[in-house]
């Protein structure tokens, strides 16, 4: 990236080509995730005077010794009362190099579904470990879930180093253990950093207490972290979201298919297939409000016109003719189960939402359940309880156009909805379809 494309602080309306990095925190309860986000914001001078006054007031009212920086994200009344994070908080900040969206997620196992919510849109994970307690089951669960969701870049923050006398061997042992664990999941990019979120060591500023660590501080690391390549093959996928038929004289014959590019590149003149029928046609035009485009790439929201009149509706998918997705009437997937009400059992019926299509599914098989400590799958399992991860086969009422999740996030992901409560109860990542 050239310097010319960076933001100019003196000209906030000037050209700004900075891209976004989406980060999610992960780790066990009380490891200091919220405190760290607060520290990052405070030390990088991204907090506002009235915000700081408010959290100083709250800390004093609750009789705390210091200003509790976790209150910058723990904004709900019950979170402050209980001293834990319950739901994801999103915070926005930027440096001259990059813009960030931080999702501060809860560590408590009861709120794993909220952690999954925050991690599902993240490019990288900030994984925290309390130096005194080391790698815990919940640390492994969050690391595994982040990886399953497609996060390939991990920053391991060994926190509360102040409580272990800034001891280097403690840091080395934890980073080694976690790097080994990540390696077994296939994750090779783990950068470890010793910090004290509470005192600020190696967060934005270098630390006197841990001069044995060469740096850079966390913020600098995040500014230069390689932005994640979301798993995405290059074949075009355009799920149709909405059919645009203007009932206005000037656009009498206009018929466009509105949607968000999921993968690949769609160009005017491309030969495409329309799923699920498989009928072929050609891209006649790509409209983006006040101008026409020659091509569209993810995640642009555009309207596509085709040369032939075909039966296309919400849930149809316009795809590269020479590289179509699998038209699946049955799918295998990793599922993270999130219902407090009932476990996921064989023969259950659920609603599946995949891209812009919604259908019903029958749970044909719950084939395996993950043990997050050993990373082994228990092949005798036949159901998944709250917060468990397993391998599931679903039979679909109507076919879905799918790709494996590790090739295409957008067309490989689905959610499961409980028909009785309308609640979202499962997150699914497709491994195969037929």
């Amino acid at each position: 990236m050239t310097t010319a494309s960076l933001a100019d602080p003196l000209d906030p309306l000037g050209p700004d080509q900075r891209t976004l990095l989406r980060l999610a925190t992960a780790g066990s309860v009380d490891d200091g995730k919220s405190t760290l986000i607060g520290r990052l914001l405070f030390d990088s001078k991204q907090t506002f005077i009235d915000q700081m006054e408010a959290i100083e007031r709250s800390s004093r009212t609750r009789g705390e010794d210091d200003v509790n920086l976790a209150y910058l994200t723990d904004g709900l009344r019950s979170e402050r009362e209980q001293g834990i994070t319950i739901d994801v908080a999103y915070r926005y900040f930027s440096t001259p190099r990059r813009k960030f969206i931080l999702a501060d997620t809860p560590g408590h196992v009861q709120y794993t579904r909220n952690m999954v919510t925050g991690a599902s849109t993240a490019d990288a994970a900030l994984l925290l470990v309390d130096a005194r307690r080391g790698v815990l089951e919940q640390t492994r669960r969050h690391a595994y879930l982040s990886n399953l969701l497609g996060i390939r870049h991990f920053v391991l923050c060994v926190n509360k180093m102040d409580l272990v006398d800034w001891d280097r061997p403690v840091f080395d042992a934890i980073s080694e253990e976690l790097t080994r664990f990540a390696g077994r999941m296939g994750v090779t990019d783990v950068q470890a950093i010793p910090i004290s979120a509470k005192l600020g060591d190696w967060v934005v500023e270098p630390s006197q207490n841990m001069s044995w660590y060469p740096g850079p501080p966390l913020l600098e690391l995040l500014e230069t972290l390689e932005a994640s390549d979301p798993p995405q093959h290059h074949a075009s996928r355009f799920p149709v979201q909405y059919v645009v038929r203007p009932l206005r004289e000037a656009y009498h014959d206009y018929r466009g298919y509105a949607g968000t590019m999921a993968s690949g590149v769609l160009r005017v003149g491309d030969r495409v297939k329309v799923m699920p029928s498989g009928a072929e046609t050609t891209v006649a035009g790509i409209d983006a409000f006040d101008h026409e485009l020659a091509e569209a790439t993810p995640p642009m929201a555009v309207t596509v016109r085709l040369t032939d009149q075909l039966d296309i509706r919400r849930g149809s998918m316009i795809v590269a003719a020479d590289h179509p997705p699998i038209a699946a009437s049955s799918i295998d997937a990793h599922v993270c189960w999130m219902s407090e009400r009932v476990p996921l059992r064989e023969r259950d019926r659920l609603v599946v939402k995949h891209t812009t299509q919604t259908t019903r599914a029958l749970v044909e098989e719950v084939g395996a359940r993950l043990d997050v400590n050993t990373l082994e799958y228990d092949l005798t399992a036949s159901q998944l309880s709250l917060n468990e991860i397993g391998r599931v086969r679903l039979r679909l009422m109507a076919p879905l156009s799918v790709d494996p999740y590790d090739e295409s996030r957008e067309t490989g992901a689905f959610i499961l909805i409980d028909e009785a409560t309308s609640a979202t109860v499962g997150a699914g990542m497709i491994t195969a379809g037929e």
Partner: protein
Amino acid sequence: MTTTATRPAALDTLSWLEAEGIHIIREVAAELERPCLLFSGGKDSIVMLRLAEKAFWPARIPFPVMHVDTGHNFPEAIDFRDRRVAELDVELIVASVQDSIDQGRVVEETGPRASRNRLQTVTLLDAVLAHDFDALFGGARRDEEKARAKERIFSFRDAFGQWDPSNQRPELWNLYNGKLTRGEHIRAFPLSNWTELDVWQYIKREDLEIPSIYFAHDRPMFKRDGMLFPVSEFVPRLPGEDPFDARVRFRTVGDMTCTAGVLSEAETLEAVVAEIAATRITERGETRADDRFSEAAMEDRKREGYF
């Protein structure tokens, strides 16, 4: 694999935010029966309306626009509202707090600090029922306030309009679950991930018109609780609250009784944004009287169904 195109460059932040917002708006329009877009004439709702215009072009926006009118408006904002709605040829519904008062649905607060801000909630929920809306688009951003920072993009309200922050649905990827149970409706927030500065940058990039009160102008003001409020027939002044002329602009457009202005010389978009980029006080902290009372003022109002 037969296709070998190179990976496209990442979109710049504004284009990314715009695409996400359009995706959300189309998703709601496709999955819900009767959506409606809340339009106050403020900068966030102006941007949201722009995204809706883009989402369905060249078709008209396929849902109405609603203004919850406290009756205590900046006249400049109402003029602007009517002009914009006419331009887009969309249906405008005005839900009036005055009507709710006249019908005895709410009781007007009294005294010099009276505000209709809280009463809006009843007017809003009555309108949702009367028009049978199942989704309302709101221009709220997560960077505005700590309770909003926690809210989903599709946020559910029960039959009493209540938000339950400790029991939100998981929301994964961009797969929004729009299934309602009886009596529920959705508040959908297409600008969730925008910051105040993003909104201004977008206004500039799209060359959007905004009401004149966002720019520095001379206006009679008075001081209360360390903030500057516009003199209006709606706010009785306390002893010592003498009016004086000041050059001000407003950072948000709300109800005149509880929206404070800031001293400013910024007459152009560039100047306004330069001031905002340099400020050390949040938008709400600087301009909203209603959030100062308690630690969880916004969370409590949201629980009651406030937008």
